[in-house]
């Protein structure tokens, strides 16, 4: 039986390329069940790419990603689909289906996975929407919502079927501070009450300090920091210090992209 503290996902020496560019370079870490694990780093350092690897949307050049004992990189389509159904993903730009109402969007995983009693779909949709403060938006179309509201609806869909593992790609970007704080609180509540594991890509220093159990920092595809918030204080890495003290570079760095 699964219990808190097990390793839920283990990444070993992950290397990946976009064309000739190495995006991730030997990334290794483990995430334990019931953790809030945050991935941070400057723009373009490979965070979103890493997240896409963790849910099997991209295949690595080399390395292993072990999810509950089996390697994602060597799964076939069917196994991957089973794995993906136990993960909730909230995308950076919400990923809502434009052709359905917000309510239908959230009902979709419940109906498609077939694991939910049909009569429960409605109250569950209402519950999840009210958790993100969108109870009134059930019958609206995604195009009627603002960017921040769409994002929250995306989160509601990600947590629709109580998945044991949830990925958030920049959940609070584009939200006002009040809403962002509310989301942090929601993440912590779900984490505490349902034991949901969260892997969150973020830039938000405040939510890192509030919610993160452990932090992984990437820079140019390499792990430059892995540890708790207390460890940050002890870190001697210049980039890490700079990030947490919110200092600008002396010159805006021009990244080599191709």
């Amino acid at each position, binding site marked *: 039986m699964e219990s808190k503290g097990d390793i839920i996902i283990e990444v070993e020496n992950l290397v990946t390329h976009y064309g000739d560019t190495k995006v991730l370079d030997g990334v290794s870490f483990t995430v334990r069940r019931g953790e809030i694990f945050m991935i941070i780093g400057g723009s373009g350092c490979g965070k979103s790419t890493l997240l896409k690897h963790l849910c099997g949307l991209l295949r690595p050049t080399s390395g292993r990603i072990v999810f509950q004992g089996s390697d994602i990189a060597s799964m076939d389509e069917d196994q991957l689909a089973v794995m993906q159904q136990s993960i909730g993903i909230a995308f950076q730009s919400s990923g809502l289906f*434009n*052709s359905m109402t917000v309510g239908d969007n959230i009902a979709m995983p419940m109906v498609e996975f077939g694991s*939910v*009693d049909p*009569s*429960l779909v409605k*109250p*569950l949709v*209402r*519950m*999840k929407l*009210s*958790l993100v403060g969108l*109870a*009134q*938006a*059930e*019958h609206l*179309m*995604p*195009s009627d919502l603002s960017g921040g509201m769409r994002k929250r609806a995306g989160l509601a869909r990600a*947590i629709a*079927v*109580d998945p044991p593992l949830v990925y958030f790609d920049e959940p609070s970007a584009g939200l006002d501070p009040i809403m962002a704080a509310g989301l942090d609180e929601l993440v912590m*509540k779900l984490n*505490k*009450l*349902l034991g949901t594991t969260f892997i969150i890509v973020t830039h938000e220093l405040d939510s890192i300090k509030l919610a993160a159990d452990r932090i992984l920092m990437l820079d140019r595809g390499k792990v430059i920091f892995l540890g708790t918030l207390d460890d940050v204080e002890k870190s001697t890495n210049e980039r890490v210090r700079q990030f947490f003290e919110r200092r600008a570079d002396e010159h805006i760095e021009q990244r080599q992209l191709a």
Partner: protein
Amino acid sequence: MTPTRVRCPETLDQDTGRTLFEVVCGKKVVPADVEIDLSATLSMDSFGGAWILRIAEQLRNGGKTAVCVGAAGDVAAFMDMLEPGMQRPATDTRVDTVLFEEFGGEVINFTKEFREFLELCIDAIYWTLVAPLEGRGFRFGAFLDELHEMGVRAVRIVCLMNFLLGLIIAMLSAKQVEAFGLQIFVANLVVIAFARELAAVMTATVVSARTGAAIAAEIATMEVQEEIDALRGMGISVTQYLVAPKLLAMIVALPCLTVLGMFSGILGGTLWGIGVLGFQPSIWYEQTLGATSMGDIGQGLLKSLFFAVAIALIGCHNGFRVTGGSRGVGRMTTRAVVMDIFTLIVIDIIFASFFYYIMK
């Protein structure tokens, strides 16, 4: 009346929740208000919570109430989290309209759309014809790109379609006149048909499916992704930037394609005449040349000019009107092609009646 008390099991999930629901709401008439006792419950998940919400809703519909009591620790925190969902659900605010409202709405929509279309037309005429002469700029590079995309890249399909159509027309008509021995006049028929009607209409149909759809999809996608707003925000005229090059490219490309279409169609007819009907090439050639008149060709080309304006403007117009994300882009693209083809036929009818009955 004292409320009925129901005890919840230790874990409240999808299965135990269903049992609870059946116990409380299984009877036809719920006798009294219900107290859901959560004191024995140690853990619950969203599904369990959803069952409680269903029970609450069911009772509310029957004029009774349900309250949760005795929750402690994590379960209490979970119930707190669900609290907003216990209230009345959002009502569907979309109202049903009656017949007259719908009719009026349609009329208003139509006039609004017509006005937008007229504005676009006037803007487009200004930015394509007047503004360049005033020295306000025309994107010549974009015009050439569009010309290549709309014109050069469509040559093969336009020629092929017209060629096959020419073949079919010759095939069909030869059979009809066979009994009278007038097969040589098939050459006349093919030439006149392609010069006046078929090349222009066939080419315009192919181009509206190809380019009209592309224009609508491109502009609609730009609108959805706020690229159009970005242009406007920079103080750049959208009509100048997007519409004018497309419109002029279409006006140049479509008549050119139509000329190629006429050639290919006549070539198709000729192939049938010489290859199958067995006429001497020189005889067929003479007959064809004799039937060719500049007036017919001019008629076809004039028509294709109008087709070009219609295809470009309808594509742009539908692109700008998009609402509702990716689904909207698809809908507007379809709409553009349907409107294109309808408009082509209308223009064609107007021309035909004008030239055959008024001009004689």
